């Protein structure tokens, strides 16, 4: 509920406190790698990172940089580019608390957060080791049908939702189109920070065709312009992933030292180019 949501990228990143519960989206929804870089640069620590419902390079880099204390996700994958070395290494060394989930559980718990419900039931899960490894999940008897066990998940209410979008306006409305999980993230979170490709001088609600794909300003605390802000990840319908850059990352991150070298270089990039 910020009247002047548009700010500098560094200011946006500075407003993410250490220890925050930060929720991010998967690669095809708009990933703010620009803000991620600023977070690493400012040395953020102790994040509880929630991925909706999975993550790739963004989580991998935050983990490698030592920013993450707890990771809640259904997967960390760089797809065909290879293993997420820093994620795997952190798990092996016990550096992060791992909350393995399944995609619909993260969606449902976030929807519970959106609705202000303390918990939400969900099918599936029963007798899996996922459920066994999650002391925060329970199984109850369906109150309407005794003898029907069902998992219940506590709501997820992140401190901050962070994503990258193509367009915002000066009032703070953000265009997300079909990427509706971004809306759910914004609703469930106390604050929403967004990087965008561009700022529209026209209010997005003034175009009846755009309005259905908008996150309303009331949910949006900060917006920073970051051209190619998803790079090296892509922004669907706008630009693709930079395969060469991601490949080079995966190759570098095989070792801690290689990762550090990559990071130094990445933090020093002046202008992002795809």
């Amino acid at each position, binding site marked *: 509920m910020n009247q002047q949501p548009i700010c500098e990228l560094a200011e946006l990143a500075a407003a993410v406190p250490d220890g925050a519960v930060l929720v991010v989206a*998967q690669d*095809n*929804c708009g990933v703010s790698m620009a803000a991620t870089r600023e977070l690493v640069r400012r040395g953020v620590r102790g994040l509880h990172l929630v991925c*909706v*419902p*999975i993550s790739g390079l963004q989580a991998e880099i935050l983990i490698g940089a030592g920013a993450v204390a707890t990771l809640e*996700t*259904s*997967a*960390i*994958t760089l*797809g*065909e580019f290879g293993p*997420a070395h820093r*994620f*795997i290494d952190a*798990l*092996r*060394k*016990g550096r992060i608390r*791992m909350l*393995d*989930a*399944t*995609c*619909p*559980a993260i*969606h*449902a718990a976030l*929807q519970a957060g959106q609705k202000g419900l303390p918990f939400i039931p*969900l*099918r*599936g*899960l*029963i*007798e*899996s*080791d*996922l*459920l066994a*490894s999650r002391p925060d999940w329970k199984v109850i008897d369906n109150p309407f049908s005794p*003898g*029907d*066990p*069902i998992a219940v998940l506590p709501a997820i209410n992140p401190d901050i939702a962070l994503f990258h979008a193509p367009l915002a306006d000066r009032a703070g409305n953000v265009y997300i189109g*079909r*990427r*509706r*999980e*971004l*809306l*759910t993230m914004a609703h469930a979170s106390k604050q929403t920070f967004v990087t965008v490709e561009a700022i529209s001088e026209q209010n997005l609600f003034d175009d009846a065709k755009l309005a259905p794909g908008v996150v309303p300003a009331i949910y949006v605390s900060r917006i920073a312009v970051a051209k190619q802000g998803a790079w090296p990840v892509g922004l*669907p*319908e706008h630009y693709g992933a930079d395969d060469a850059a991601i490949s080079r990352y995966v190759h570098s991150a095989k070792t801690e030292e290689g990762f550090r070298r990559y990071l130094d270089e990445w933090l020093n990039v002046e202008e992002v180019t795809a």
Partner: protein
Amino acid sequence: MNLDYSRAELLVAVIARLLEGCRHVTVGASSPIPGAAALLRRDLTQGAMRVTILGSNRYNAYTNGGVETFDMAAQGRIDAFFLGGGQIDGQGNINLVGTGRYPASDVRWPGSFGSAYLYYLVPKVILFREEHTRRVLVPKVDFISSPGVSAPGVYRPGGPYGLLTGLAWFSFDKQKQRFRLESVHPGHSVEEIRDQTGFEFDCPDEVPFTSAPEPAILTLIRGRIRNEIAETYPRFASTFAN
């Protein structure tokens, strides 16, 4: 044995047969062979069978975000889905998390994705893993991302329909909670399957070879399907028929 089709083409043809009768099939983002098979089946039904490919723009008509796949499954609107696993055991349990002692796994895979839900709810889950070795097909998975069967009383309209590998096709018997070897792919043998499978399975006295793709099917795969999947799996499409 010199076959006039590739293994990928055989698998696509087999899966397309398994999808007969489905109204809507959903395929994961990184599943090119199931994706191609679903598109093939769609073509064979003149588009009557719907296909959703997660991560595709063209084959994804969802407007409620990522949760829509899971809601649709719960609504009974997805008839078939594909799951893999770093480990799969003889009871149909799958492990997408890692080997050794969780969470500090010896080998860590990406994670469970939607398996611990879709495996329960989608009626025809086809387990698909090309690698057919004792490393993958184990007596007991180290971590149950999702169990193959559930106790009586657990809501479970879905579950494993069978397991397709690079060597063979097994059906799954929910009563017996076991796989049954249904066919061995041309060029392979029951002995080879036994050697490479870490779990016990039912095996009839006579195991047929998996039927080869009909010429018309091969033509379709090499033509229209190859073009159709190029949007979603460009790298795969280019190496498809090797």
